[in-house]
């Protein structure tokens, strides 16, 4: 694509990302005559008389229990809530590494912070143990740098930020979690490695139902989750390195699976993520909450804006207004560093953290999707193309992406598997049937606006399994998460019933 088109595309992308700008000018003001310069004022004589009040102060403790509070954990390492501890936070604070906090059914209006390594927080009933932020509390469970923590078999809903949040955690696991109607993400892992998110459900978040970001190598796994009615089914900014997203369903979001690059957070670019064996369909949902990027990516199944070295294979992808699988650039206005060169792609997160940003930082960056492999997927019913690729600052044929063995009807450019096969030299005309990302990005200006996450209509959750033997199974801290997936052993999933 030529430079002129790139500029035009940039303009469209940025326009699209902006949404409607406001020209609503408030009434003219009187000329400013006062300044904030220190002003000799009459000595204030008013004081605020102490207000005798016992006005109720909201706490983050559960409100529905009045159980006695123990200060010493039981010797068997199992801390029962609310039987032994009135609040989950009380039990967490009393727990020692290796302990199991077993939470009985009830509604807990808590925002739980975890700083103790290797504890497990488990509900005895996934649907019945409900952490509810009531749109006032920020995170259902927030794990802050603690290692090996497990959160499992519970529901986290109505939080202003996230249902379950891990930050800077080495070793983590979220299993059998139901995360609904949370203000940023359902389950969110940031700057964390050696983790696993499995058997979970995320719905109704404006960003993503599930997110793993700012890690390389992540050595992490998402397995058997359902993500629906979010802005994005999955998002992962600047993550990768033995990061596998598998055997999951991403449906009825604005966009499905969206690994992406950007310099606004560390560990760029996004690279080396494997997306395998998933069902990704109908990600055109117009009535969800959605951040700007979700509006931009709407109508795509698996799209990797600026993604590098990813393997997208054996997924069943269908019913998308734009593309089933797309490798497209991401324009980042307001850059925070320069683009990493290919020899810097392998630099780990820890090393990059120590590197200062470039002395000269461009105003914008164009992250191209490069060196990705798209193989053995079954893609259908895509209104623009089943599989698509396009470069802007680089010629599309020079991006190094390859395609092979997919069951598809159409591609953009046409005959993509002949143009860029994964085995052997490609041939053909790259100018035939190009994606014309410019054309469909214009659509975003007319995209249905985001719906407030607090009121967006959501489907009833599907039947969701309880963790087996939740009341009796021993705690297993997430200290030995090993991600060693045999991609060859995974098949394209069967179409869902109905």
């Amino acid at each position, binding site marked *: 694509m030529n430079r002129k088109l790139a500029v035009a595309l940039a303009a469209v992308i940025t326009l699209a990302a902006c949404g409607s*700008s406001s020209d609503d000018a408030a009434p*003219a003001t009187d000329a400013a005559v*006062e300044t904030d310069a220190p002003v000799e004022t009459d000595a204030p004589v008013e004081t*605020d008389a102490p207000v005798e*009040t016992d006005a109720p102060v909201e706490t983050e403790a559960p409100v529905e229990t009045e159980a006695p509070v123990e200060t010493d954990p039981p010797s068997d390492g199992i801390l029962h809530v609310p039987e032994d501890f009135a609040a989950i936070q009380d039990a967490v604070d009393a727990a020692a590494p290796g302990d199991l906090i077993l939470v009985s059914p009830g509604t807990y209006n808590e925002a739980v912070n975890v700083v103790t390594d290797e504890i497990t927080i488990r509900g005895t009933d996934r649907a019945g143990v409900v952490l509810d932020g009531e749109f006032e509390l920020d995170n259902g469970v927030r794990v802050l*740098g603690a290692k090996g923590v497990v959160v499992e078999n519970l529901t986290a809903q109505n939080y202003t930020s996230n249902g379950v949040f891990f930050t800077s955690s080495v070793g983590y696991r979220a299993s059998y979690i139901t995360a609904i109607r949370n203000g940023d993400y359902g389950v969110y892992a940031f700057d964390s490695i050696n983790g696993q998110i499995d058997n979970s459900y995320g719905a109704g978040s404006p960003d993503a139902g599930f997110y793993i970001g700012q890690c390389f190598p992540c050595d992490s796994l998402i397995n058997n989750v359902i993500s629906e009615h979010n802005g994005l089914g999955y998002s992962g900014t600047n993550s990768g390195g033995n990061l596998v997203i598998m055997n999951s369903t991403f449906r009825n979001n604005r966009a499905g699976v969206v690994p992406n690059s950007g310099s606004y957070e560390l560990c760029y670019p996004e690279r080396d993520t494997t997306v395998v064996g998933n069902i990704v369909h109908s990600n055109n949902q117009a009535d969800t909450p959605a951040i700007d990027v979700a509006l931009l990516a709407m109508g795509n199944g698996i799209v990797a804006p600026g993604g590098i070295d990813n393997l997208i294979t054996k997924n069943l992808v269908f019913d998308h207004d734009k593309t089933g699988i797309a490798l497209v650039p991401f324009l980042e206005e307001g850059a925070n560093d320069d683009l990493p060169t290919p020899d810097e792609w392998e630099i780990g997160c820890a090393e990059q953290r120590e590197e200062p940003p470039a002395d000269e930082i461009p105003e914008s960056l164009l992250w191209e999707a490069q060196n990705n492999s798209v193989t053995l997927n079954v893609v259908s019913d895509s209104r623009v193309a089943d599989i698509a690729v396009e470069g802007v600052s680089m010629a599309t044929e020079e991006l190094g992406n390859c395609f092979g063995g997919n069951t598809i009807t159409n591609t953009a450019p046409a005959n993509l598997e002949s143009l860029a096969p994964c085995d052997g030299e490609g041939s053909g005309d790259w100018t035939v049937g190009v994606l014309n990302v410019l054309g469909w990005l214009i659509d975003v200006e007319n995209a249905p606006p985001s719906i407030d996450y607090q009121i967006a209509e959501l489907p009833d959750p599907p039947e969701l399994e309880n963790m087996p033997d939740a009341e009796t199974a021993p705690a297993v801290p997430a200290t030995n998460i090993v991600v060693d997936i045999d991609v060859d052993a995974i098949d394209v999933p069967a179409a869902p019933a109905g």
Partner: protein
Amino acid sequence: MGWAGRRRIIGALVAASALLAACGSSAAETNAGGDPDPERRGPQGRVAQFVVECELSHLAYDDPIVLPWQAGKSHLHMFFGNRAVNSDPGYNERMLSAETSCDQRRDTASYWAPALLNAEGNVIEPLKMSAYYRPGHGVDPAEVVPYPEGFMMVGGDSTAQKTQSSDIVAWSCGTGAARNDAPTQCPDGTSLRLIIVFPDCWDGERLTTFGASAHVRYSSFDNEGGCPEAHPVPLPQLTIGIDYPPVDPTGLSLASGDITTGHADFWNVWDQAKLEGEVAMCINRDLVCGVTS
């Protein structure tokens, strides 16, 4: 009475005392002085922080720090956060029980800045404000303490007649690293952002010196880091970014005067327990508890 209630009474008394004491203070100081921190550049995620994003709450010709109890006497301010703030500086139940315009519902603090005006003198409404709480440069994150209840401070100098340090007051496009002395034409899809960095070292005694800022200083990066001797208490370094639509920068001014008069005010009316928790969990533990885009 519960502990929280007693704390509030103590806080109100301290605030009132501080206000009265400060009334006799010199008006000569117009900024926090000291060597400002070097500007933060580069991606979020490298430095510990917790963040809050707020919509515009209201506009008013009030300033409870600089012109307390003088309703309508200030230049026009945009207020974010606490919806009840006016010219009354009382740290009291009226303020503590007020609603907030912030996504962090326990952040009932108040943040305000002069209104941005176009060439015709009309107010340009902001899109949002982001508040970043981080350890200052050269400060041990574990040593940072929360703002005391009722604490007030000003970042930037409303009387500046020449460009202020871009380490304290700057204009950018969105969250990009580039910092400019004056507004520029930002691309569509981004925002015009006013950045204000607040002082982060406290004398440990006074809750406010009105607009004088004698009670606070910036941590110094060429003083081997950390806080100066007379202001030894490290506070979170608050940086706010106020985002506006990417308007034509020609003729822009602030309600306080020329574009060089960029400044902002902060009044700690946070739910104190929540603030203390965020400082302890995020800054003291040197963790990133959130990012903004």
